[in-house]
């Protein structure tokens, strides 16, 4: 997937969804297979999206 210039947009929640699990946690690099640089961008984007309630901090599914 061509993501331009290594900027991960917090607005693209559909894309970010791929990097969080069903609990809403950010997946580790060993699972996502991304470069360190991209992983940092993803982490930042997810955190921004969470702040704006576009992604959950915790998604309660399992109990």
């Amino acid at each position: 997937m061509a993501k331009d210039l290594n900027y991960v947009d917090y607005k693209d929640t559909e894309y970010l969804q791929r990097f969080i699990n069903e609990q809403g946690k950010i997946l580790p690099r060993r699972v996502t297979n991304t470069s360190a640089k991209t992983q940092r961008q993803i982490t930042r984007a997810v955190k921004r999206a969470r702040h704006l309630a576009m992604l959950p901090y915790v998604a309660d599914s399992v109990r």
Partner: protein
Amino acid sequence: MAATKNMYEFTYIITPVLSEEQIKETVKRVNKAIESNGGKVIEVEEWGSRRLAYLINKKRNGYYVNLYFEAPGDSIPRLTRSIEIDDNILRYLTLRMDKKMIQHYELRKQKAADAAVPDTTVETEATVETEATE
């Protein structure tokens, strides 16, 4: 000291309890706050009402507004202060756009323009092409 201007991306969420008219007023008020602090609004994009991923002030939905503006850096604290005071705004996020973000923004805008072009005449298409080659 001449403060240099930066590009900013600003997103905020308005309470869903307001009427459409009141939402419009709030958007206007925010834009005015930017302009009065020496900024210049470049683009306002209203995403409309969306479901929040979690409750904020016991609200399930929020009206999202995303905008881009240019302003001197020292105007931002004043701006965020006025936003903070506004009870109709649930959340906000201010980002100073670096080179990558600006490029990303321009690319996105271009893509949107390209998607909108096909219906229009040959003339406009030609202008789009010249812009792209520059």
